[in-house]
């Protein structure tokens, strides 16, 4: 098991290397550079100032030199300094990551509590009205873009009931309730958008599993409907669903960028969005690196969880 984990962790290194390259290069391809923005903001137009600022920020070097400088820093735990705020990127990430992690975790809980029971229900009541309603709902959640739904939730309740979602962030450890009151709306929206695919996958897999011979064996033993689902079917059906959840991890990050913006959640998504607007290269690189590591770790976790779900792939 540990040897397996070590192997898997080692395999992350080349993946991350290539990811960092792509991020670093693609970032420079965004039209308009940070110096232009800085100069425009400060009303400076002379070429001399431009050269000075470039030199000060290290942007006068060729791109590959910049890249190796940056990657050298990464290896020593230094992700560089924000070009605008003069704050180390690691500090910014430390402040924002836990918030996004909380949002992601809450969304995942929402997604699973919605998707699994409805998916199972839809499967055992296949082709009934309930199944159709559940499936239509899931299609709807797939079709509706998150930003639009988010905007609706901001606008309509305030018009109809003079209620609007909380938009002020309170740290969890200062006031858990206030924190949750703020986070719950984006978490539900993000969770619902994730639940659509998960629900459909759960339904499909449960239908598949319920047709299996071992389910008939269990019925022939006198196993009741609930136990049949809980003990005999669900674990078999969940194996591909767990994979899907792993694959949806990047979606979660993408969703976080949108919902953090709409609901003013000071997480990594908001940090990233501002950094992109300002061409704050070190921040963008840092965020992508951390997100990349996160996504890879989630997928590793998914693979490890197979061992628990499926005795055939237990890593002995």
């Amino acid at each position, binding site marked *: 098991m540990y040897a397996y984990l070590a192997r898997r962790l080692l395999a992350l290194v080349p993946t991350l290397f290539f990811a960092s390259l792509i991020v670093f290069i693609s970032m420079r391809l965004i039209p308009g550079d940070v110096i232009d923005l800085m100069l425009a903001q400060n009303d400076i137009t002379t070429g001399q100032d431009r050269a000075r600022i470039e030199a000060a920020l290290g942007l006068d070097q060729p791109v590959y030199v910049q890249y190796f400088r940056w990657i050298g820093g990464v290896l020593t735990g230094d992700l560089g300094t924000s070009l605008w705020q003069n704050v180390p990127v690691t500090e910014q990430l430390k402040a924002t990551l836990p918030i996004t992690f909380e949002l992601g975790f809450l969304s995942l809980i929402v997604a699973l509590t919605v998707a699994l029971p409805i998916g199972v229900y839809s499967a055992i009541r296949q082709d009934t009205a309930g199944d159709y309603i559940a499936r239509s709902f899931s299609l709807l959640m797939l079709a509706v873009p998150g930003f639009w739904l988010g905007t609706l939730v901001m606008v309509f309740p305030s018009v109809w009931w003079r209620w609007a979602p909380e938009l002020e962030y309170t740290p969890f450890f200062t006031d858990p309730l206030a924190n949750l009151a703020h986070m719950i709306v984006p978490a539900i929206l993000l969770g619902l958008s994730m639940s659509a695919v998960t629900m459909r996958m759960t339904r499909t897999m449960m239908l598949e599993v319920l047709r299996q011979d071992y389910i008939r064996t269990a019925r*022939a033993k006198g196993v009741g409907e609930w136990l049949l689902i809980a003990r005999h079917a669900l674990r078999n059906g969940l194996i591909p669903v767990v994979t899907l959840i792993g694959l949806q991890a990047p979606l979660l990050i993408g969703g976080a960028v949108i919902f953090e913006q709409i609901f003013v959640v000071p997480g990594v998504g908001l940090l990233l969005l501002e950094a992109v607007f300002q061409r704050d290269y070190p921040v963008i690189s840092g965020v992508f690196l951390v997100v990349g590591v996160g996504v890879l770790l989630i997928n590793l976790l998914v693979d490890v969880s197979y061992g628990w779900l*499926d005795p055939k792939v237990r890593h002995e």
Partner: protein
Amino acid sequence: MTAAGSAPLLDVQDLSVSFRTDRGLVRAVDRVSLHVESGETLAIVGESGSGKSVTALSILRLIDTAGSIDGGRILFDGEDLLRHDEATMRAIRGDRIAMIFQEPMSSLNPVLTIGKQVGEPIRLHRGSVWKQAYERAAELLRRVRIPDASGRLKDYPHHFSGGMRQRAMIAMALACRPRLIIADEPTTALDVTVQAQILALLKELTREANSALILITHDLGVVARYADRVAVMYAGRVVETATARALYADPRHPYTAGLMASIPTLDGDVEGSRRLATIPGQPPDLAALPEGCAFAPRCPHAFERCGQPPPLEETEAGRFSACHFRPPSGGAQGASPRMEQNAVTR
């Protein structure tokens, strides 16, 4: 049909089952009547699609949602199983009637340990705690001769070979000492060498427990060795029932005779090439059965009356056959002008 005074353990009367398919309603089982005495082994023989498995599943009311039982009675210990609600049926399944399925590879749950699966009926029907259920599971696995039984409780099905899985299935079926065990082609998926072991074991253990056994098979060799009585099914109907001995000595229904003639034997001429008899044609399409006898299109003895459905009639004590043709003594085996001789190089 039964010995005077004592009711049989299982008495299936006029059971009809149909399935909704894309091509309309298909009658898979048509007015089937069977009975099994306590401790007796009844073989149900037939080709795939003859309705034998559906009959078996109907006894436990386990046919899937596309199928429905249209009529008849299934009397078990005097109670009609078709009148029970689902909860009562659940209490009977695995306790008083157990079932063994064909595919030991797919009939065990891949994510549950053998101990859990074998112990489950005991936990369900005897209300034992898991510890007791596991102990009993180990004892059952010993009885089906799995070496190091208690050590293998924690194994998963993929650790077991096909034969061992089928032993585990038998252990599971025996768990609550059922009055009746239904084994649906229990050895079809196994190696030939293992088949005989498994059947002998099944027979021995059911005899020990004084359980009745319904053995569903398409293998007449199995029938000869292990069954007391035989019901031959064709196109959803029982066409002949007799004791295994009588059926072998003198098959009455032309279909049975055809089946018997198509058993390969090893005492052919030494020259090498011997011809194996086959029944011409294909089993009928259940969605488009002929008006009268379903076997008539393939039957060497078919005549005008076969356009009328033949009733299952007692031809002599304990023997029933559904055929208008009454062969002279010596059975339907003799005259078989249309029983084609196909070349099988052996």
